[in-house]
Every structure is written in C-alpha cells, then in structure tokens.
C-alpha cells in the first residue's frame, strides 16, 4: 500500500538519489515528505544513535531533519524536490 493519498493530484514523479539509491518523488513536495513516502524515516545517524536525524516538526523549527543536498546542508522539510537532486546524510 502506497502512503500517497490517491485523491490528491500531483505532478508526475521524477527521480532523485538518496545515499546513492534512486527514489521516485514528486517535484514540489518537500524532501522530508518524499523520504517518508519512500519508507525512509531514518534520515541519518547524527551524532548520537539515541537521537538520529528524522522528520519531526515538518515546519522548519526543530532542525532534526538536516540532510545534504548536492553537498549543501538543508532542512528536508523546507526543501522542495526537483529532478536529479543528490541527497546524502548530514
């Protein structure tokens, strides 16, 4: 079962790579949403396995969802998906 709600229409999927693996995502949705939809809840190990990187507030406040996008540190919840993005753990 997909986590995407069928009643909401969205643009055709594109491919981004997450830690080298291809992931289908819809342009415009947040990277955090795309990773959750792909079943990738754990965004990285961070400094302490007791508090790994993950989506938590989804509105730019908590700073837990940090990722590297094309090498640049970003908040996954505030960063829209675009084709060809390369995402790695922060």
């Amino acid at each position, binding site marked *: 079962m997909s986590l995407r*709600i069928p009643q909401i*229409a969205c643009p055709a999927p594109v491919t981004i790579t997450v830690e080298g693996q291809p992931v289908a995502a819809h342009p415009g949705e947040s990277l955090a949403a795309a990773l959750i939809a792909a079943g990738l809840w754990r965004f990285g190990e961070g400094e302490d396995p007791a508090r790994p990187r993950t989506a938590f507030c989804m509105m730019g406040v908590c700073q*837990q969802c940090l990722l590297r996008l094309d090498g640049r540190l970003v908040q996954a919840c505030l960063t829209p998906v675009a084709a060809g993005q390369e995402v790695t753990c922060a």
Partner: protein
Amino acid sequence: MIHDIAVLGGGPAGMAAATEAAHGGARVVLLEESPAPGGQVYRAAPPGFHAKPDPDRRAGDALRAALTKTGAELRTGCRVWGLGGGPLVPEGQAHAPFSLSALGADGVPFTLQARALILCCGTHERIIPFPGWTLPGVIGLAAATILLKAQGILPGRRVVVAGAGPLLYAVAAKILAGGGSVAAVVDAATQGEWLRALPALAARPDLLTQGIAWRAKLLASRVPVLAGAQVTAAEGDKVLTHVRVGDRIFAADALCVGHGLVPATEASRTYRARHAHRPEDGGWVPVLDAAQRTSVPFLYAAGDGTGVRGAAAAPAAGRLAARTALQDLGFNTANAPEEDAALARARRTGAAMARMMALRPAMIQAIPAETIICRCEGVTRAAIEDAAAAGAGTINQLKHFTRCGMGPCQGRMCGEAAGALLSSARGVSVADVGFTTGRIPLRPVPMEAILGDFDYADIPVPAPAPI
C-alpha cells in the same frame, strides 16, 4: 530604501496585516519562510498539487488573493535570521529603523529596513518528551497535518494519534479518509474536559459539526479512543514499531503526537519587549496594549504568536495591528470598524481549545529521569534536575549549566518542558524561571550569509603606533 512597515510571518495574521497596511498607503514588505504565504493552517499546496478544496483552503486562498492584489512586496522562501535597529542601538542613541537580515529563496543574503515592524510569527508545537520520542516515525500532530493536507502523504499505514486538543481528531479523521488505519487515539483530555468545553465550542457550530463528524468517523471505523491517557513509550529498533499506552501495546509504523501550541516569541524577545507567562494563552507571550502595540515603540504583534486563538481569529488582529502602525507612522486611517460577533465567537472557541492544549503539569512529572528533553544537545531530565540542585535557578542558567536549548532549534522544542522541570525542581513557578534571552541568529544560517562579501584586504588594519 526604507519600507514603512515590514511584516514578519505570512500566516493569516501576517497576510491580513500586510494587506491592510498596503491599503493604507504604506510601503509594505512581508517576509515568510515557506515558499508561499498561508501559514500552517492555511498552508498553500506545492504548485501542481490539487486536492478537493476544503474551508481552510478557501479561507487561505481568499487571504492570499487579497494580499497579492495589493502589490505589497512579498519575500517568500526566505530565512530571516538577523534583527537589528529599533531599540537595539547603543545607549543614549535614538530609536533606529528596524533592520531584518535574511537569506533569500535564491540563497542570496539581503537586509531590509522598516520604520515599523509587525510580528506575526505564529506558533510551534509543544511535544512533551516520553521514552522513545526521538525514534524515527514519531512526528508532531501539526507535522502530520502538513504531510496529509499539503503534501498528500499518510504518515504511516497504521498510526497512533496522541496528545491534546482538536488536532488529534482532525489528524485521525484525515488518516482514515486518506486510506490509512488508526490503531488508537490517545487523548490526554478526559471526557469531562471536552464536556466542559462544549458551550464554548457551540459558539462555532461549523467547528462543532466538523468535530462530531470526526468522532463519528472514528466510531464507525472502530478506532479505540483512550480518554485521559498518554503514551508511555514509543518502541522500535531503528524505526517505530510499537506504541505503549500503560499496559496496552499498539503495533504502529507512525505516532503523531502533540500537546498544544506555543507562541513563537523569539523576535519580540530579541527586541527585549516585555513578556508575560500566560499558560492559558500557550506560555510566554508579548505584553500588548488594546491596539496590538508591544512595549517597544513601532513594534507590533498579532495572531497566535500573541496567544493561541486559532486561524479564524488571527486576520482581525493583523488588520488592527496594521491600522495602529499606520496611525503611529502618521498615515491617515479610517476609524477601525466594530469587531463583529463572528470574530468574538471565533475567539471564544479558540480560547477554549487553547485551555485544553495548555501545558499539563502531570505529563511533565511523568517523564522518566533518563528521557532526553533537549534532543539537539541530548540533555536528559536527570541532567536538568542535577543542574537545578547545583544552583541553576533560571532557564538561562540551565542553558549555561547543561547546553539545554543551546542547539540548532534554540530551545523551541525543549524550552517548555525544560522550564516546567526546572520550576518544579526549584519549587518556584514557571514564570519565575523565565525564558531564554532572544538572540540572533533566529534560525541557523551558513557563516557566509552572516559574513557577507569581503576580502582579507578589506579588513582595516590600524597603522602601527610610532615608537
């Protein structure tokens, strides 16, 4: 160029404030972190995403359309990190125009100046820590709303929804409507609390009807609703697999949990405006006069950031703040229209919901000693209580002792729980432990955004002193 009025935050209060200020003839700029104005409740969907419009979407679209029509300058997708000017000038100097430094959507830093500043910064979610709350798969209730409404994604296939306030039932109903299943709703409020809130809820029949429909949907789907209960632990190896509520264990791949909303006061704290602690408003709020003025000249605030009353009540407060700012700046403004009855009802319902979402001291007391409170810095309840015993008497001192609140979220997620734990350990009120001093940067920014463009050759080197 100096703007007359800058509005920080593009939710319902900010959109209405900017619209009103522009109608009054002021040169206006609105700064917003999201890619489009809207705020959390009226959040715009990404371009190309279409869902059946609901009342929230229509209300948001109307505010957005009115704002766009004014031609006010919109700076969306920008990260405001620096605040200066206003009262932040060397002692003895006159009040300066406000200055706001930000990183633009294009990554280019910029600074704006404005004679008056209206803060419409909204709220963030209060999540009282419990064992396992840092496990991936645990997200806020407001976070779940964003996933469901703006992004069209279910947080999980089988979800536990927990916490306090109306969002609980809204999120549970949306998950069911989207094809997911809800393992349980765990409501911190007792049925008695909801019954006592009913008269105030009845002031907004639309919301009451919606609430009853949500409950009916849960009943029809045989979702267990646990009243007066709370999550005791989130469990799983790398990600969430189970949620424990007392002796009951629910298998779940997501837990959406939220215990109310906290006004975002970092900007008014940075400008050293006076604040008061009002639990029934969500916590610390700037002290305002009847016309939305803070204690700092030409600094105004409106919306849920000044006390949680909900999106329906926010635009009127934003408009009032804008009219006051226009008057204070010497613009001719029409007399304020009478506040209508619908707004008074929205405020009454909003206040009842805010009371239900206020900090629950029993929930704070239930936190085990080894549970992480500050997830940026990994500070546990035990570490906070050790610091309290060692002499930390205020939240600022606690920060110095433990680094609690010193990480990249700057205490937004842990501040409420840390303040409550410190106050109970010290045997004083939450108001007495105070709030963290507002400091820039308001949000983490790359060093180059703060430094700007410079070469080593630009650094002035004083001539050596003559021997």
